[in-house]
């Protein structure tokens, strides 16, 4: 269920970069006009208020892994349309193709081998601009294959999660991906493979209620929306105003669901350290 974020990005969702074209952009964090190039050079973080903009999977990989070390795998796992799902004239597969060319990505989750500060790992990264990083069969299968790679190669698994929830166009099959990925985590646990998740903006719905919340260690980016039911849904159901800061990373941290909140600039050294400390035996 792609729950759109009620607070921000309303007009700029669905682009590869969350920043509108042009030299200047208004930062949703500090509400100031910020020089766009400056934000981009700063890992898509506002230099004034440290607001963490959403970031595509490939851009994320570029700032996270040792240069040139990412080796993508399981690209052959592709989406199908078993329900023959159509909205108006647009078929589901057409929508996926459009997302593929917009995001220059083969699906909402890319997986492969990488090195982070010289530690080898299996890495999965979700792209919030690819159909809200919703989880369908291809995303579920890629996650499971990445977990299998980690077990076979005795490498840790690091997943940078982001998702609006389930891929509605796959109906019940997308629901089943929750069970499927939970089973993959169970296998990681039994094989004593460290599994680290980083929850980024937004991590909600079926992805949060399955593999994203099952990390041995759960990190999150500052300000990220993290929750099961989307804030708009809760507001609609309860007819109340939600408290300030509800379902932010900080809120989930205070409620005991996150180990540490890590700034984007600190993510690489943090993961590097954890991977060194937790190398599978």
């Amino acid at each position: 269920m792609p729950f759109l974020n009620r607070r921000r990005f309303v007009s700029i969702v669905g682009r590869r970069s969350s920043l509108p074209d042009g030299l200047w952009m208004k930062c949703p964090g500090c509400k100031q006009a910020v020089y766009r190039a400056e934000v981009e050079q700063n890992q898509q973080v506002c230099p004034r208020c440290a607001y963490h903009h959403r970031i595509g999977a490939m851009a994320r990989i570029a700032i996270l892994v040792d240069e040139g070390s990412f080796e993508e795998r399981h690209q052959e796992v592709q989406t199908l349309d078993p329900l023959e799902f159509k909205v108006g004239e647009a078929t589901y597969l057409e929508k996926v193709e459009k997302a593929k060319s917009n995001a220059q990505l083969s699906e909402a989750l890319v997986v492969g081998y990488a090195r982070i500060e010289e530690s080898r790992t299996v890495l999965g990264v979700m792209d919030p601009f690819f159909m809200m990083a919703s989880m369908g069969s291809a995303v579920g299968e890629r996650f499971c294959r990445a977990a299998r790679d980690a077990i076979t190669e005795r490498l840790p698994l690091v997943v940078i999660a982001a998702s609006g929830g389930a891929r509605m166009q796959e109906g019940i099959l997308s629901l089943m991906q929750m069970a499927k990925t939970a089973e993959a985590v169970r296998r990681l646990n039994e094989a004593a493979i460290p599994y680290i998740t980083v929850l980024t903006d937004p991590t909600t719905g079926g992805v949060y209620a399955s593999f994203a919340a099952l990390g041995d260690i759960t990190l999150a980016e500052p300000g990220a929306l993290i929750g099961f039911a989307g804030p708009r849904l809760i507001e609609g159901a309860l007819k109340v105003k939600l408290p300030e800061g509800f379902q932010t990373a900080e809120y989930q941290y205070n409620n005991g669901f996150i180990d540490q909140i890590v700034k984007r600039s600190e993510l690489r050294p943090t993961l590097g350290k954890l991977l060194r400390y937790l190398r599978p035996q």
Partner: protein
Amino acid sequence: MAESNERGRLGLETSLPFERRILEIEALIEKTPEGDARGELISELERERETVFQNLTAWQRVQLARHALRPRMLDYTRRILEDFFELHGDRLGGDDAAVITGIGRFRGRTLMVVGQQKGVTTEEKVARNFGMPHPEGYRKALRAFRLAERWRLPIVTFVDTPAAHPGIEAEAHGQGPTIAQNLLEMLGVKTPVFAVILGEGGSGGALAIALGDWVAMFEHAIYVICPPERCAEILWKDVEKKELAASALRVTARELLALNTIDAVLPESGGGAHRNPEVAAQAVAEELAWFLGECDKGRWTSEQRREKYQRMGVWSEMPSDEYRVPSSEFRVPSEE
């Protein structure tokens, strides 16, 4: 004829639009003495039932699944269990009434029973939050799963929820992580699990107690990734497209069977489970007895359940793959 169940008789207020003509004919039959006229009416009733129930749309099934008089979990357990000893609380500070757990006796053996109860009276509905569990409810279920494993008891779960409760407290107490943990642990429980979807299988809120070795589903029940109304709102930007969304999402039992996401469809006789709860309960009892019999023959391992869910989904291995499930498979076969 018009069987009344524990909630009183099906009447104008509780009936669905497509049930009305059937009710009218039934009322006429009751007023007509034995004879040719009555015989005529009875044939007319049979014809009307056939016409309506052989041509149900996806949306009509959604309506049946949510029917005000549809039997609930406790209507089944009361009928098929010889005894039931309820176990309360999650041992972490809460006891969610939307979820019921306990030890049941079924044909001389002991089972662990877990389910969601929507409630019958207004008072009960409110007390049970319309069957929408909080994290405490899922933890209560998890406690029951763990006890069942320790005691080597088969588990039977009754699934009937619109959704996991969407609310501030539910989020604060970890609705997402709790459901995730249930999925992980339920898959690994080393004892047979039988799940039956009674009415509404609402998304992750249902899935968290529905991972069975054998998942049966009533023919007028639904199992959804999200309610058709919400899907219509999000994808069609128009809640009135709910009927279209219901058929596009493939929410009915036979469609789900074709997608290999459930294992059996339980037939509902004569106008739906609410018209004859006894027959519906009998169908669950027979399916459960068959499943337990298969397990007794040694045809069960916990690895099978894990493998089944590990394989779930439809994807291609190559960009050029032309694989599609033919649409003809989704046509709902006619009633027996």
